[in-house]
């Protein structure tokens, strides 16, 4: 009862300033759009070029969304921002590409790819488990800053080991569509003149599938519900007999597996290297922040949006500037909408 009263007071207070800020942000958005069209106009961009930029952005965005999902999952129950998330993506991509290149099984390439992918997911999940038990669990009550620094350290260690094992060269993984056709190059679809690679379809389908599985797990199984309960109120969850330590372990397992899957579908379009995880992890972090860091659906939208915005912005300017746009977004979001770009004004904390 007390809490509803405080919320009412808070919204009443905020209302006038809200509309002013809303008006300003709409104006700002319009100005940005105009700027984009002006810059695009100088390059003689038509509708098709913009559609192409958006499509390519959605492909990168789907990967960011998967990484952000992993981050949010871990953050929700452990309050750890896992900067090693990018390492899971790298491991998924590198292990799959490496195993596939050796064609260890005497079967068709498609079977080899599948086996390599399964092994990569299992291995990465085991790494996630190991990290949680060995470096996160013993310092569970440490400050958020300490935990962040630990995950950065973990990332550096994994990247270092990857460098030792694989060297600096890029590995190669053929596009998945080539396993089902005679062609040696990826299939290309051209709806309305927009080029969509077959691998993009694989990426989108996989992302949708992973999201569906996670949705089912978190909302329709008792372990998923227990996980949510632990994120909502850790003390009350403990009183139900839900062990926070097991839920933390589960979070790392889910995040590692999802990260590995992202790396596997991404591998054919990027030529994976030992250091690919850093940038991806950071982009996933930006996406998660855009979604407010606690909501999985918002993180997915944040990821897609980030992919589109940075790709369009880079398209109308210089492609080398892509990463700069992502981090400008990060700074803007943190300054003006730290609760995420989707959520309404921050709710007052319950007493």
């Amino acid at each position, binding site marked *: *009862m*007390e809490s509803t009263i405080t919320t009412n007071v808070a919204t009443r207070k905020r209302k006038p300033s809200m509309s002013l800020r809303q008006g300003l942000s709409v104006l700002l958005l319009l100005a940005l759009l105009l700027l984009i069209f002006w810059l695009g106009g100088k390059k003689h961009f038509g509708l098709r070029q913009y559609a192409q930029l958006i499509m390519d952005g959605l492909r990168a965005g789907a990967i960011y969304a998967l990484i952000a999902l992993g981050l949010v999952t871990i953050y929700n129950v452990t309050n750890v921002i896992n900067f090693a998330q990018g390492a899971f993506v790298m491991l998924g991509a590198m292990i799959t590409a490496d195993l596939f290149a050796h064609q260890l099984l005497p079967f068709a390439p498609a079977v080899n790819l599948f086996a390599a992918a399964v092994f990569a997911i299992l291995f990465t999940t085991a790494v996630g488990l190991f990290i949680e038990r060995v470096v996160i669990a013993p310092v569970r009550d440490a400050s958020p800053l300490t935990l962040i620094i630990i995950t950065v350290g973990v990332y550096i260690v994994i990247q270092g080991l990857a460098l030792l094992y694989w060297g600096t060269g890029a590995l190669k993984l053929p596009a998945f569509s080539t396993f089902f056709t005679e062609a040696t190059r990826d299939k290309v679809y051209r709806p309305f003149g927009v080029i969509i690679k077959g691998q993009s379809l694989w990426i989108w389908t996989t992302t949708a599938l992973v999201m569906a599985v996670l949705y089912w797990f978190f909302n329709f199984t*008792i372990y998923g*519900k*227990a996980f*949510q*309960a632990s994120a*909502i*109120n850790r*003390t*009350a*969850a*403990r*009183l*139900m*007999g*839900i*062990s926070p330590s097991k839920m933390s372990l589960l979070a790392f397992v889910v995040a590692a597996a999802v990260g590995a899957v992202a790396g596997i579908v991404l591998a054919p379009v990027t030529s994976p290297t030992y250091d690919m995880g850093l940038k991806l992890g950071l982009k996933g972090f930006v996406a998660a922040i855009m979604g407010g860091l606690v909501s999985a659906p918002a993180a997915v939208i944040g990821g897609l949006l980030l992919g589109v915005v940075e790709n369009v912005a880079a398209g109308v300017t210089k492609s080398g500037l892509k990463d700069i746009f992502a981090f400008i977004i990060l700074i803007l979001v943190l300054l003006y909408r730290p609760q995420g770009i989707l959520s309404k004004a921050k709710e007052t904390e319950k007493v």
Partner: protein
Amino acid sequence: MLLQIDRINTYYGHIQALKEVTLHVNPGEIVALVGANGAGKTTLLHTISGLLRARSGRILFQGQDITKARAAAIVRAGISHVPEHRQVFGTLSVYDNLLLGAYQRYRRDGRKAVQRDIEEIFDLFPRLRERKKQMAGTLSGGEQQMLAIGRGLMARPKLLLLDEPSLGLAPLIVRDLFQLIASLRDRGQTVLLVEQNARAALKLADRAYILETGRIVLEGNAHELLEDPRVQAAYLGGHALAA
């Protein structure tokens, strides 16, 4: 004896919150734990349910030592703790909240048995059945308290710990709530009740303990304590002084 606590001491860092607390709960009775704010009532419940650990002393439940057991193991042993401020899972449905109350026995007893128990809770609190799919955070304070108690009962506890169930509720709802707790006793449920509302708690309970700055200062038959001038002066609005 169902629960036996033997001279426990609990600390928050260097601050001692419980001093040599000894109490027991017999099967089938309601024991009230009364005291002012900060007397250590909640600390005692947390120590029993494993959220806090006693630095010394022993807690026996059905003769089994649970002093150092984990919270999950204590739930499994048969103690269910309904926390202060209700603490329902606000963004989960009423149904899911009840389901999670049975988390510890879900695998052992199976989904069917748990669903049957949820129906039983709905019979006990028909209001919750109406709001089965609603998010728990949207319920009124009284309904949330019913849900919190229902969730606690879902563990099929041998001992139910209730922490300040009347806190922040309207007087009429408090009356219903205490009637409900009495009806739980009629069903054979053992309850350890922590309350600031001393009069209501003492009227309801069989036995009671009075806690003051971490120490048990008085104990005995609840109705006798209700008449005790010291209790009346300190907890029942000072009528004893006038008399």
